[in-house]
């Protein structure tokens, strides 16, 4: 059976038409490392790159010289070649605050920032990260278009419960803002009960009663004040959400799905691939990460194990080497089977393999190594 078509990473990052690369995939498959390695490789080949990471492991952040979460792209030092690399960690609360500040006068902005409902929403509630990652991507892109600071933005995606929540975020926000619910919430701030009645007409009293009963009067007041305060900026929010969604569908955007050669991660990858297709999002291909490397495939499992038995007594160390080789072959076989299943289900999807490294990446050299593994794939052309 022929292998999958090869994902040519260098062609992707060389192409000046590639302006955004989104790395997505299940948690724990090496998404952030892949994003950083792609960024470094692109920069060292002359691109001016900004990498947006969501929640990098400490040592990976240190590898890129990121010591604090300050929501601003910082230049990474030690880049070879003519390009440049900046990296940042997303600070979702700061990003949210900036949106608020950018869309209302200072008095109104302060009222929102001080609102307890806003404070909970912006700093603690899960899900805000998805919205803010996309918001930040939109900001970086506008900055790139305006100032020419970067010609390639690489974004890591949050480890959501559904890792494609970020795709739905702008759309959900739009649907929500069109809904009547938002108007009801805003109503108490505009002048108590009568306002609600006008908006809703019949059936409203049941609803208002439910809300008060469930939420409690005080929470309802805070919520109403919050919604009332942000009411004027909703138009802006909505436009931005739609612009971000359109940006993701732009031909200059490429999605790279990252997976490990394991059942669950590949199942998730299948789901991403289908979903991206459905939404008309441009898919570059699959990075199959942490693949077991086999250094001597010509020595079969049976030969190695039989040989190991014969010599175990006199040379246990060499027997252990043969055993090790057999184990690696077994793992590689199982991974190969799983990868083939993915390819059969998604025959057109380009794939590149990256061997598992003995250690986690903690410096630029480590990222360079991952980058070169990404670029030279074993998959057939």
């Amino acid at each position: 059976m022929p292998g999958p078509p090869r994902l040519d990473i260098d062609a992707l990052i060389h192409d000046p038409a590639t302006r955004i690369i989104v790395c997505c995939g299940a948690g724990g498959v090496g998404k952030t490392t892949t994003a950083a390695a792609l960024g470094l490789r692109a920069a060292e080949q002359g691109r001016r790159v900004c990498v947006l990471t969501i929640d990098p492991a400490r040592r990976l952040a240190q590898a890129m010289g990121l010591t604090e979460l300050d929501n601003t792209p910082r230049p990474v030092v030690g880049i070879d070649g003519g390009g440049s690399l900046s990296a940042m960690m997303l600070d979702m609360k700061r990003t949210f605050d900036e949106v608020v500040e950018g869309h209302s006068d200072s008095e109104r902005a302060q009222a929102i920032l001080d609102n307890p409902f806003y404070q909970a929403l912006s700093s603690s509630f899960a899900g805000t990260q998805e919205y803010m990652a996309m918001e930040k991507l939109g900001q970086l892109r506008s900055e790139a278009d305006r100032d020419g600071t970067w010609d390639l933005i690489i974004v890591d995606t949050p480890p959501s419960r559904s890792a494609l929540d970020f795709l739905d975020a702008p759309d959900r926000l739009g649907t929500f803002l069109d809904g009547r619910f938002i108007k009801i919430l805003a109503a108490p701030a505009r002048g108590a009960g009568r306002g609600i009645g006008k908006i809703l007409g019949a059936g409203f009293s049941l609803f208002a009663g439910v809300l008060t009963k469930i939420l409690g009067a005080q929470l309802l007041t805070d919520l109403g004040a919050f919604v009332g305060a942000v009411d004027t900026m909703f138009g802006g929010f909505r436009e931005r959400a739609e612009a971000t969604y359109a940006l993701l569908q732009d031909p200059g955007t490429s999605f790279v799905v990252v997976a490990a050669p394991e059942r669950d991660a590949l199942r998730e990858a299948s789901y991403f691939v289908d979903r991206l297709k459905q939404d008309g999002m441009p898919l570059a291909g699959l990075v199959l990460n942490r693949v077991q490397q086999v250094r001597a495939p010509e020595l079969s499992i049976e030969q190695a194990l039989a040989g190991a038995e014969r010599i175990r007594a006199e040379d246990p160390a060499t027997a252990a080497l043969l055993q090790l080789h057999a184990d690696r072959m077994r793992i590689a076989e199982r991974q190969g089977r799983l990868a083939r299943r993915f390819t059969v289900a998604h025959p057109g999807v380009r794939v590149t393999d990256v061997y598992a490294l003995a250690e986690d990446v903690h410096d630029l050299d480590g990222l360079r190594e991952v980058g070169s593994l990404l670029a030279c794939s074993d998959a057939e052309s």
Partner: protein
Amino acid sequence: MPSSDWPNVVLHVVSGKGGTGKTTVAAALALGLARGGRSVMLMEVEGRQGLAQLFDTPPMPYEERRLASTPGGGEVWGLAVDPEEALLEYLEMFYNLRRAGGVLRRMGAVDFVTTIAPGLRDVLLTGKAVELVRRRDKHHARAYDAIVLDAPPTGRITRFLNVNTEIAGVAKVGPIRNQADGVMAVLRSDKTAVHLVTLLEEMPVQETTDGVAELEDAALPVGGIVVNMTRPPLLPDVADLAALTPSRVSATLTQAGITPNAPLIQALLADGEDHVARVELERVERARIAALGRPVYELPALSGGIDLAALYELSDMLTEQGMA
């Protein structure tokens, strides 16, 4: 049978970095706890249908279903919680307002609660777990002897469990506040233990370390650490691998009936170097886990993958080590 390290715990929360196998560990723990005729609820909250895949059943609706039985008449039940259904159920339970659900749905309020403000989704999910803990049968005995919650990953677990504290910050009084306080009281009590699953790798161990600190800061009860997918060392002392020379390997391969050649020898020695590096890395990570001062349980990597038989095998190991 060894006694359990967690005799008072009713709610076992299982978290871990993505890819560490927390769903598998949660299922094995549930099977272990069900021994001796006990009835255990295994609950998933991330909408991934992980339990259906693991137990090889069709996708589960929002309904308590029996997944497996254990020797001695024990039972493991499963529940895949759907936030929307949980909301409607919550309305009915506390306010007798199920009828209002349709209205709320049309208003976009259900969307609001379950997607726009996902924090509220976590309120519903933790609330459901606590409801299962509190539920009594008609004889006033616990409906489930234990609840195992396949929880969000370590990076989000504290925020997830602590969400009701956030609610308390927003809702100063009222029924929501009372519900939030009640849920936090159970989650912070000795009836709850938050177990973290890790691998012997740098990043998962780092996340586990950070997770323990965050849980402790939030006054949430940290349980045990499960080191998953361990592989036994190939030799008592891996230094013997590092001491091998190409000529020695070449001579031994001939004895073993394998024709040696330079690339093969280089390949085998490189595999050996990788193994030595990994064993050393694992030694360092093991020490970091031990330094956390929590009970540690180990589960080996199973070569055949995970099926129901493998789950029973893993549950035996957890029972022997005192986790279940």
